Protein backbone atom coordinates (compact mmCIF):
# COMPACT_ATOMS: atom_id res chain seq x y z
CA UNK A 1 0.00 0.00 0.00
CA UNK A 2 1.30 3.46 -0.84
CA UNK A 3 0.22 6.77 0.59
CA UNK A 4 0.50 10.14 -1.13
CA UNK A 5 2.77 12.29 0.97
CA UNK A 6 3.37 15.30 -1.28
CA UNK A 7 1.08 16.75 -3.92
CA UNK A 8 2.36 17.71 -7.35
CA UNK A 9 2.37 21.39 -6.38
CA UNK A 10 4.30 20.69 -3.19
CA UNK A 11 6.93 18.77 -5.12
CA UNK A 12 7.30 21.49 -7.76
CA UNK A 13 7.57 24.10 -5.03
CA UNK A 14 10.14 22.09 -3.08
CA UNK A 15 12.39 21.56 -6.07
CA UNK A 16 12.07 25.16 -7.17
CA UNK A 17 13.32 26.34 -3.78
CA UNK A 18 15.96 23.60 -3.80
CA UNK A 19 17.32 24.42 -7.23
CA UNK A 20 17.35 28.19 -6.74
CA UNK A 21 18.86 27.77 -3.27
CA UNK A 22 21.67 25.61 -4.64
CA UNK A 23 22.43 28.14 -7.37
CA UNK A 24 22.60 30.98 -4.84
CA UNK A 25 24.64 28.76 -2.52
CA UNK A 26 27.25 27.94 -5.16
CA UNK A 27 27.57 31.49 -6.51
CA UNK A 28 27.41 32.92 -2.99
CA UNK A 29 30.21 30.66 -1.79
CA UNK A 30 32.26 31.84 -4.75
CA UNK A 31 31.95 35.44 -3.53
CA UNK A 32 32.54 34.28 0.04
CA UNK A 33 36.04 32.91 -0.42
CA UNK A 34 38.74 33.08 -3.10
CA UNK A 35 39.28 29.36 -2.53
CA UNK A 36 35.72 28.71 -3.73
CA UNK A 37 35.71 31.25 -6.56
CA UNK A 38 36.04 28.35 -9.02
CA UNK A 39 32.33 27.75 -8.47
CA UNK A 40 31.58 31.04 -10.19
CA UNK A 41 33.91 30.07 -13.03
CA UNK A 42 32.09 26.76 -13.46
CA UNK A 43 28.76 28.61 -13.55
CA UNK A 44 29.79 30.93 -16.35
CA UNK A 45 32.27 33.32 -14.76
CA UNK A 46 32.29 35.95 -12.02
CA UNK A 47 30.25 38.69 -13.72
CA UNK A 48 27.61 36.22 -14.93
CA UNK A 49 27.30 34.66 -11.48
CA UNK A 50 27.10 38.08 -9.89
CA UNK A 51 24.42 39.13 -12.37
CA UNK A 52 22.14 36.12 -11.80
CA UNK A 53 22.68 35.60 -8.07
CA UNK A 54 20.19 38.28 -6.94
CA UNK A 55 17.58 37.44 -9.57
CA UNK A 56 17.68 33.72 -8.78
CA UNK A 57 17.53 34.77 -5.13
CA UNK A 58 14.26 36.56 -5.84
CA UNK A 59 12.88 33.39 -7.45
CA UNK A 60 13.96 31.47 -4.35
CA UNK A 61 12.13 33.95 -2.17
CA UNK A 62 8.98 33.76 -4.32
CA UNK A 63 9.08 29.96 -4.11
CA UNK A 64 9.62 30.18 -0.35
CA UNK A 65 6.54 32.39 -0.01
CA UNK A 66 4.56 29.92 -2.12
CA UNK A 67 5.81 27.11 0.13
CA UNK A 68 4.77 29.14 3.13
CA UNK A 69 1.23 29.19 1.75
CA UNK A 70 1.31 25.42 1.24
CA UNK A 71 2.90 24.34 4.52
CA UNK A 72 2.48 27.14 7.02
CA UNK A 73 -0.19 25.39 9.06
CA UNK A 74 1.60 22.02 8.92
CA UNK A 75 4.75 23.71 10.19
CA UNK A 76 3.39 25.42 13.30
CA UNK A 77 5.22 24.27 16.41
CA UNK A 78 2.99 22.44 18.92
CA UNK A 79 3.55 21.51 22.59
CA UNK A 80 4.26 17.94 21.44
CA UNK A 81 7.02 19.33 19.24
CA UNK A 82 8.65 20.94 22.27
CA UNK A 83 8.58 17.58 24.00
CA UNK A 84 10.12 16.03 20.87
CA UNK A 85 12.86 18.67 20.78
CA UNK A 86 13.68 17.95 24.44
CA UNK A 87 14.08 14.31 23.45
CA UNK A 88 15.84 15.09 20.14
CA UNK A 89 19.00 13.36 21.36
CA UNK A 90 17.19 10.04 21.35
CA UNK A 91 16.05 10.65 17.80
CA UNK A 92 19.32 11.99 16.46
CA UNK A 93 22.02 9.93 18.09
CA UNK A 94 20.51 6.84 19.66
CA UNK A 95 18.13 5.85 16.90
CA UNK A 96 15.76 5.30 19.79
CA UNK A 97 12.73 6.68 17.99
CA UNK A 98 10.32 5.09 20.44
CA UNK A 99 11.55 7.52 23.07
CA UNK A 100 10.27 10.55 21.17
CA UNK A 101 6.58 11.41 20.94
CA UNK A 102 4.82 10.35 17.72
CA UNK A 103 4.79 13.06 15.11
CA UNK A 104 2.33 14.60 12.67
CA UNK A 105 2.94 15.33 9.01
CA UNK A 106 6.27 16.96 9.79
CA UNK A 107 8.39 16.24 12.83
CA UNK A 108 9.73 19.00 15.04
CA UNK A 109 13.18 18.79 13.47
CA UNK A 110 11.72 19.37 10.02
CA UNK A 111 9.74 22.30 11.39
CA UNK A 112 12.82 23.88 12.91
CA UNK A 113 14.57 23.45 9.57
CA UNK A 114 11.61 25.03 7.79
CA UNK A 115 11.55 28.11 10.01
CA UNK A 116 15.33 28.50 9.85
CA UNK A 117 15.11 28.56 6.05
CA UNK A 118 12.05 30.80 6.02
CA UNK A 119 13.44 33.50 8.31
CA UNK A 120 16.87 33.02 6.75
CA UNK A 121 15.36 33.77 3.34
CA UNK A 122 13.72 36.95 4.66
CA UNK A 123 17.00 38.16 6.21
CA UNK A 124 18.85 37.30 3.02
CA UNK A 125 16.35 39.31 1.00
CA UNK A 126 16.52 42.40 3.21
CA UNK A 127 20.32 42.40 3.43
CA UNK A 128 20.63 41.31 -0.20
CA UNK A 129 18.75 44.37 -1.44
CA UNK A 130 21.33 46.60 0.28
CA UNK A 131 24.17 44.58 -1.25
CA UNK A 132 22.49 44.83 -4.63
CA UNK A 133 22.17 48.62 -4.58
CA UNK A 134 24.75 49.90 -2.08
CA UNK A 135 24.96 53.35 -3.64
CA UNK A 136 21.26 53.88 -2.94
CA UNK A 137 22.09 53.88 0.76
CA UNK A 138 22.99 57.46 1.69
CA UNK A 139 26.64 58.06 2.58
CA UNK A 140 25.64 59.18 6.07
CA UNK A 141 24.05 55.78 6.72
CA UNK A 142 26.96 53.77 5.34
CA UNK A 143 26.97 51.51 8.39
CA UNK A 144 23.83 49.95 6.90
CA UNK A 145 25.88 48.78 3.90
CA UNK A 146 28.54 47.10 5.95
CA UNK A 147 26.04 45.73 8.47
CA UNK A 148 24.07 44.21 5.58
CA UNK A 149 27.15 42.24 4.49
CA UNK A 150 27.50 40.72 7.95
CA UNK A 151 23.79 39.96 8.09
CA UNK A 152 23.78 38.39 4.62
CA UNK A 153 26.72 36.18 5.43
CA UNK A 154 25.48 35.17 8.88
CA UNK A 155 22.01 34.34 7.56
CA UNK A 156 23.56 32.38 4.69
CA UNK A 157 25.75 30.38 7.08
CA UNK A 158 22.74 29.50 9.23
CA UNK A 159 20.81 28.26 6.19
CA UNK A 160 23.89 26.32 5.03
CA UNK A 161 24.08 24.53 8.36
CA UNK A 162 20.38 23.69 8.16
CA UNK A 163 20.76 22.69 4.51
CA UNK A 164 23.58 20.23 5.23
CA UNK A 165 21.46 18.47 7.86
CA UNK A 166 18.37 18.55 5.63
CA UNK A 167 20.10 16.90 2.68
CA UNK A 168 21.84 14.39 4.93
CA UNK A 169 18.61 13.40 6.68
CA UNK A 170 16.64 13.14 3.46
CA UNK A 171 19.20 11.27 1.40
CA UNK A 172 20.94 9.10 3.98
CA UNK A 173 19.14 8.83 7.31
CA UNK A 174 15.54 8.27 6.29
CA UNK A 175 15.39 5.94 3.28
CA UNK A 176 12.32 6.60 1.17
CA UNK A 177 12.38 10.37 1.67
CA UNK A 178 13.88 11.14 -1.72
CA UNK A 179 11.30 8.95 -3.41
CA UNK A 180 8.58 10.77 -1.45
CA UNK A 181 9.65 14.22 -2.59
CA UNK A 182 10.24 13.05 -6.17
CA UNK A 183 7.13 11.05 -6.98
CA UNK A 184 5.09 11.93 -3.93
CA UNK A 185 4.48 8.47 -2.49
CA UNK A 186 5.56 6.62 0.63
CA UNK A 187 4.80 3.17 1.94
CA UNK A 188 2.40 2.68 4.84
CA UNK A 189 5.27 1.39 6.96
CA UNK A 190 7.28 4.50 6.20
CA UNK A 191 4.40 6.75 7.18
CA UNK A 192 3.65 4.80 10.37
CA UNK A 193 7.30 4.70 11.42
CA UNK A 194 8.20 8.31 10.87
CA UNK A 195 4.91 10.22 11.14
CA UNK A 196 2.55 8.16 13.30
CA UNK A 197 -0.03 10.87 14.00
CA UNK A 198 -0.21 11.83 10.33
CA UNK A 199 -0.56 8.17 9.36
CA UNK A 200 -3.36 7.68 11.85
CA UNK A 201 -5.13 10.78 10.62
CA UNK A 202 -5.08 10.05 6.90
CA UNK A 203 -5.85 6.37 7.26
CA UNK A 204 -8.72 7.22 9.63
CA UNK A 205 -7.53 5.24 12.63
Amino acid sequence: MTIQRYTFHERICHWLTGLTYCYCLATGLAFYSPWLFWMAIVLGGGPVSRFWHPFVGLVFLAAAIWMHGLWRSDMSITPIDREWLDQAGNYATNNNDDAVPPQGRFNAGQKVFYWAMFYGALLLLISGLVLWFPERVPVGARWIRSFAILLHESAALITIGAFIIHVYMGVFVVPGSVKAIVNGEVSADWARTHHRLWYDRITGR
Partner: protein
Amino acid sequence: MANGPLEIKAISGHAGTVAGRDTSRDYAVAKLIDVTTCIGCKACEVACLEWNGYPFRETEFDNTYQTMPDLAWNYYNLIRFNEHTNADGTFQWLMRKDGCMHCADPGCLRACPSDGAIVQYTNGIVDFQQDNCIGCQYCVTGCPFNIPKFNSETKKVHKCTLCSDRVGAGLEPACVKACPTGCLHFGSKEDMKELAATRVQQLHEHTSHKNAGVYDPAGVGGTHVMYVLHDINEPEKYGGLPKDPQVPLSVRIWKGPLKWLGNLAMAGGILGVAVHYLRFGPKREMSENGKPK
Protein backbone atom coordinates in the same frame (compact mmCIF):
# COMPACT_ATOMS: atom_id res chain seq x y z
CA MET B 1 60.16 51.88 -11.06
CA ALA B 2 60.40 54.20 -14.01
CA ASN B 3 59.91 52.54 -17.38
CA GLY B 4 59.31 49.16 -15.74
CA PRO B 5 56.14 47.23 -15.17
CA LEU B 6 54.62 47.93 -11.78
CA GLU B 7 55.32 45.21 -9.25
CA ILE B 8 52.27 43.79 -7.52
CA LYS B 9 52.10 43.74 -3.73
CA ALA B 10 48.56 42.52 -3.02
CA ILE B 11 45.69 41.11 -5.09
CA SER B 12 42.02 41.00 -4.17
CA GLY B 13 40.13 37.72 -3.82
CA HIS B 14 43.29 35.77 -4.51
CA ALA B 15 43.82 32.17 -3.46
CA GLY B 16 47.42 31.55 -2.58
CA THR B 17 50.52 33.67 -2.60
CA VAL B 18 50.89 36.76 -4.72
CA ALA B 19 53.21 36.21 -7.63
CA GLY B 20 56.04 38.69 -7.69
CA ARG B 21 55.46 39.98 -4.20
CA ASP B 22 58.47 41.44 -2.39
CA THR B 23 60.69 41.03 -5.43
CA SER B 24 60.77 44.71 -6.17
CA ARG B 25 62.62 47.63 -4.74
CA ASP B 26 60.10 50.15 -6.00
CA TYR B 27 59.83 53.07 -3.68
CA ALA B 28 56.46 54.18 -2.47
CA VAL B 29 55.01 57.10 -4.36
CA ALA B 30 52.57 59.75 -3.18
CA LYS B 31 50.56 62.66 -4.41
CA LEU B 32 50.51 65.64 -2.12
CA ILE B 33 47.54 68.00 -2.37
CA ASP B 34 48.24 71.31 -0.71
CA VAL B 35 44.69 72.45 -0.14
CA THR B 36 45.93 75.85 1.01
CA THR B 37 47.09 76.75 -2.49
CA CYS B 38 44.21 75.30 -4.47
CA ILE B 39 42.33 77.98 -6.42
CA GLY B 40 39.55 75.69 -7.62
CA CYS B 41 40.41 76.08 -11.31
CA LYS B 42 39.48 72.46 -12.09
CA ALA B 43 42.41 71.98 -14.47
CA CYS B 44 42.99 68.64 -12.68
CA GLU B 45 39.41 67.56 -13.42
CA VAL B 46 39.84 68.28 -17.12
CA ALA B 47 43.30 66.70 -17.32
CA CYS B 48 41.93 63.55 -15.67
CA LEU B 49 39.13 63.27 -18.23
CA GLU B 50 41.52 63.89 -21.09
CA TRP B 51 44.13 61.38 -20.02
CA ASN B 52 41.56 58.69 -19.27
CA GLY B 53 39.71 59.35 -22.51
CA TYR B 54 36.32 60.09 -21.02
CA PRO B 55 34.06 62.66 -22.64
CA PHE B 56 32.81 65.43 -20.42
CA ARG B 57 29.66 64.16 -18.77
CA GLU B 58 26.42 65.86 -17.87
CA THR B 59 26.54 67.61 -14.52
CA GLU B 60 24.07 68.67 -11.90
CA PHE B 61 23.96 72.33 -10.96
CA ASP B 62 23.32 72.83 -7.27
CA ASN B 63 24.07 76.55 -6.89
CA THR B 64 27.71 76.02 -6.04
CA TYR B 65 30.95 76.13 -7.98
CA GLN B 66 31.27 72.37 -7.66
CA THR B 67 31.12 70.57 -11.00
CA MET B 68 28.72 67.93 -9.72
CA PRO B 69 27.52 66.65 -6.36
CA ASP B 70 29.71 63.54 -6.25
CA LEU B 71 32.36 61.61 -8.12
CA ALA B 72 31.15 59.39 -10.96
CA TRP B 73 32.42 56.23 -12.59
CA ASN B 74 33.93 58.34 -15.39
CA TYR B 75 34.83 61.30 -13.14
CA TYR B 76 37.63 60.27 -10.80
CA ASN B 77 38.59 63.66 -9.61
CA LEU B 78 36.32 66.35 -8.22
CA ILE B 79 37.09 69.57 -6.42
CA ARG B 80 34.72 69.95 -3.52
CA PHE B 81 33.80 73.56 -2.80
CA ASN B 82 32.84 74.26 0.78
CA GLU B 83 31.80 77.56 2.28
CA HIS B 84 32.77 77.41 5.90
CA THR B 85 32.05 79.92 8.66
CA ASN B 86 34.58 79.78 11.45
CA ALA B 87 33.72 80.05 15.12
CA ASP B 88 34.94 83.68 15.18
CA GLY B 89 32.59 84.62 12.35
CA THR B 90 35.23 84.76 9.66
CA PHE B 91 34.60 82.98 6.42
CA GLN B 92 36.65 80.42 4.51
CA TRP B 93 36.10 79.09 1.05
CA LEU B 94 37.60 75.63 1.15
CA MET B 95 38.42 73.70 -2.00
CA ARG B 96 39.55 70.13 -1.82
CA LYS B 97 40.41 67.85 -4.70
CA ASP B 98 38.55 64.64 -3.85
CA GLY B 99 39.42 61.22 -5.23
CA CYS B 100 40.93 57.90 -4.29
CA MET B 101 43.37 58.15 -1.38
CA HIS B 102 45.33 55.00 -2.32
CA CYS B 103 45.34 53.65 1.23
CA ALA B 104 48.23 51.47 2.37
CA ASP B 105 45.54 49.22 3.90
CA PRO B 106 42.84 49.46 1.24
CA GLY B 107 39.34 48.54 2.44
CA CYS B 108 38.21 48.07 -1.16
CA LEU B 109 40.85 45.40 -1.76
CA ARG B 110 40.04 43.65 1.49
CA ALA B 111 36.36 43.50 0.62
CA CYS B 112 36.77 42.49 -3.04
CA PRO B 113 35.94 38.81 -3.71
CA SER B 114 37.12 38.67 -7.31
CA ASP B 115 40.60 37.40 -8.08
CA GLY B 116 42.71 40.24 -9.40
CA ALA B 117 39.96 42.86 -9.70
CA ILE B 118 41.87 45.12 -7.33
CA VAL B 119 45.64 45.15 -7.14
CA GLN B 120 48.02 47.08 -4.96
CA TYR B 121 51.42 47.80 -6.43
CA THR B 122 54.53 47.95 -4.32
CA ASN B 123 54.73 51.65 -5.04
CA GLY B 124 51.45 52.06 -3.16
CA ILE B 125 49.04 52.58 -6.05
CA VAL B 126 45.74 50.73 -5.64
CA ASP B 127 44.31 49.97 -9.06
CA PHE B 128 41.04 48.47 -10.25
CA GLN B 129 41.30 45.96 -13.11
CA GLN B 130 37.91 46.18 -14.76
CA ASP B 131 38.54 43.00 -16.77
CA ASN B 132 38.39 41.02 -13.53
CA CYS B 133 35.64 43.05 -11.85
CA ILE B 134 32.37 41.18 -11.32
CA GLY B 135 30.38 44.26 -10.32
CA CYS B 136 29.46 43.18 -6.79
CA GLN B 137 30.30 46.63 -5.34
CA TYR B 138 31.76 45.23 -2.13
CA CYS B 139 34.55 47.77 -2.67
CA VAL B 140 31.95 50.53 -2.35
CA THR B 141 31.16 49.18 1.10
CA GLY B 142 34.80 48.59 2.03
CA CYS B 143 35.98 52.11 1.20
CA PRO B 144 36.05 54.52 4.17
CA PHE B 145 36.18 57.50 1.78
CA ASN B 146 33.18 56.54 -0.38
CA ILE B 147 35.19 56.70 -3.59
CA PRO B 148 34.49 53.73 -5.95
CA LYS B 149 31.68 54.36 -8.38
CA PHE B 150 29.64 51.75 -10.22
CA ASN B 151 28.80 51.90 -13.91
CA SER B 152 25.41 50.23 -14.04
CA GLU B 153 25.64 49.63 -17.79
CA THR B 154 28.95 47.80 -17.88
CA LYS B 155 28.60 46.48 -14.28
CA LYS B 156 32.13 47.59 -13.49
CA VAL B 157 33.45 49.81 -10.73
CA HIS B 158 35.90 52.63 -11.41
CA LYS B 159 38.07 55.05 -9.46
CA CYS B 160 41.26 57.09 -9.73
CA THR B 161 44.21 54.97 -10.88
CA LEU B 162 46.78 57.55 -9.72
CA CYS B 163 47.62 57.33 -13.43
CA SER B 164 49.36 53.99 -12.89
CA ASP B 165 49.88 53.87 -16.65
CA ARG B 166 51.75 57.18 -16.58
CA VAL B 167 53.60 56.44 -13.33
CA GLY B 168 54.75 53.08 -14.72
CA ALA B 169 56.29 55.03 -17.58
CA GLY B 170 58.03 57.46 -15.26
CA LEU B 171 55.53 60.30 -15.62
CA GLU B 172 53.55 62.16 -12.98
CA PRO B 173 49.75 61.78 -12.84
CA ALA B 174 47.83 63.91 -15.34
CA CYS B 175 46.22 66.07 -12.65
CA VAL B 176 49.62 66.95 -11.20
CA LYS B 177 50.95 67.90 -14.63
CA ALA B 178 47.99 70.20 -15.25
CA CYS B 179 47.93 71.99 -11.88
CA PRO B 180 48.87 75.66 -12.41
CA THR B 181 49.48 76.71 -8.80
CA GLY B 182 51.80 74.01 -7.58
CA CYS B 183 49.09 72.79 -5.26
CA LEU B 184 49.63 69.23 -6.51
CA HIS B 185 52.94 67.45 -6.05
CA PHE B 186 54.06 63.97 -6.92
CA GLY B 187 57.10 61.98 -5.91
CA SER B 188 58.28 59.41 -3.42
CA LYS B 189 56.21 59.17 -0.28
CA GLU B 190 59.25 60.14 1.79
CA ASP B 191 59.85 63.27 -0.25
CA MET B 192 56.19 64.22 -0.18
CA LYS B 193 56.04 63.83 3.59
CA GLU B 194 59.05 66.07 3.91
CA LEU B 195 57.54 68.63 1.55
CA ALA B 196 54.27 68.51 3.45
CA ALA B 197 56.06 69.04 6.76
CA THR B 198 57.91 72.02 5.35
CA ARG B 199 54.69 73.54 4.05
CA VAL B 200 52.95 73.00 7.38
CA GLN B 201 55.80 74.70 9.17
CA GLN B 202 55.54 77.61 6.73
CA LEU B 203 51.83 77.90 7.45
CA HIS B 204 52.45 77.85 11.18
CA GLU B 205 55.15 80.51 11.01
CA HIS B 206 53.81 82.85 8.37
CA THR B 207 50.02 82.55 8.38
CA SER B 208 47.20 82.44 10.87
CA HIS B 209 46.60 78.74 10.16
CA LYS B 210 48.06 77.54 13.43
CA ASN B 211 46.22 74.23 13.17
CA ALA B 212 47.61 73.40 9.75
CA GLY B 213 48.69 69.82 9.38
CA VAL B 214 49.25 66.84 7.12
CA TYR B 215 46.41 64.43 6.43
CA ASP B 216 47.95 60.96 6.14
CA PRO B 217 45.51 58.95 8.28
CA ALA B 218 47.06 56.10 10.26
CA GLY B 219 43.73 54.23 10.52
CA VAL B 220 44.18 52.99 6.95
CA GLY B 221 47.93 52.56 7.26
CA GLY B 222 48.63 55.98 5.79
CA THR B 223 47.66 57.05 2.30
CA HIS B 224 49.49 57.57 -0.96
CA VAL B 225 47.45 60.70 -1.54
CA MET B 226 48.03 63.20 1.26
CA TYR B 227 46.60 66.59 2.02
CA VAL B 228 47.99 69.67 3.67
CA LEU B 229 44.96 71.17 5.42
CA HIS B 230 44.56 74.60 7.01
CA ASP B 231 42.98 72.89 9.97
CA ILE B 232 43.91 69.30 10.63
CA ASN B 233 41.50 69.11 13.58
CA GLU B 234 38.42 69.48 11.41
CA PRO B 235 38.89 67.56 8.17
CA GLU B 236 35.10 67.09 7.97
CA LYS B 237 34.63 70.69 6.88
CA TYR B 238 36.43 69.93 3.60
CA GLY B 239 33.42 68.12 2.21
CA GLY B 240 33.22 65.09 4.44
CA LEU B 241 36.85 64.06 4.79
CA PRO B 242 36.70 61.59 7.72
CA LYS B 243 38.75 62.49 10.78
CA ASP B 244 39.84 58.95 11.55
CA PRO B 245 39.06 56.72 8.57
CA GLN B 246 39.15 52.98 9.20
CA VAL B 247 38.38 49.93 7.16
CA PRO B 248 34.78 49.34 8.40
CA LEU B 249 34.72 47.08 11.45
CA SER B 250 32.12 44.86 9.82
CA VAL B 251 34.40 44.32 6.82
CA ARG B 252 37.20 43.30 9.17
CA ILE B 253 34.89 40.92 11.04
CA TRP B 254 33.52 39.58 7.77
CA LYS B 255 36.93 38.89 6.27
CA GLY B 256 38.41 37.78 9.59
CA PRO B 257 36.71 35.89 12.43
CA LEU B 258 33.37 35.37 10.68
CA LYS B 259 35.07 33.77 7.71
CA TRP B 260 36.98 31.34 9.90
CA LEU B 261 33.90 30.60 11.96
CA GLY B 262 31.95 29.95 8.77
CA ASN B 263 34.65 27.76 7.26
CA LEU B 264 34.89 25.75 10.46
CA ALA B 265 31.11 25.41 10.72
CA MET B 266 30.67 24.29 7.10
CA ALA B 267 33.57 21.85 7.13
CA GLY B 268 32.50 20.66 10.58
CA GLY B 269 28.92 20.21 9.41
CA ILE B 270 29.89 18.05 6.45
CA LEU B 271 32.39 16.07 8.49
CA GLY B 272 29.86 15.77 11.29
CA VAL B 273 27.11 14.21 9.19
CA ALA B 274 29.61 11.84 7.60
CA VAL B 275 30.77 10.63 11.01
CA HIS B 276 27.16 10.47 12.18
CA TYR B 277 26.29 8.15 9.32
CA LEU B 278 29.20 5.86 10.04
CA ARG B 279 28.28 5.73 13.72
CA PHE B 280 24.48 5.50 13.58
CA GLY B 281 23.55 4.74 9.97
CA PRO B 282 20.08 5.03 8.50
CA LYS B 283 16.82 4.70 10.40
CA ARG B 284 14.86 1.52 9.86
CA GLU B 285 11.16 1.32 9.10
CA MET B 286 8.97 -0.70 11.41
CA SER B 287 6.32 -3.04 10.11
CA GLU B 288 2.78 -2.95 11.49
CA ASN B 289 3.52 -5.28 14.40
CA GLY B 290 6.34 -3.00 15.56
CA LYS B 291 9.19 -5.23 14.37
CA PRO B 292 12.02 -3.77 12.31
CA LYS B 293 11.64 -4.65 8.65
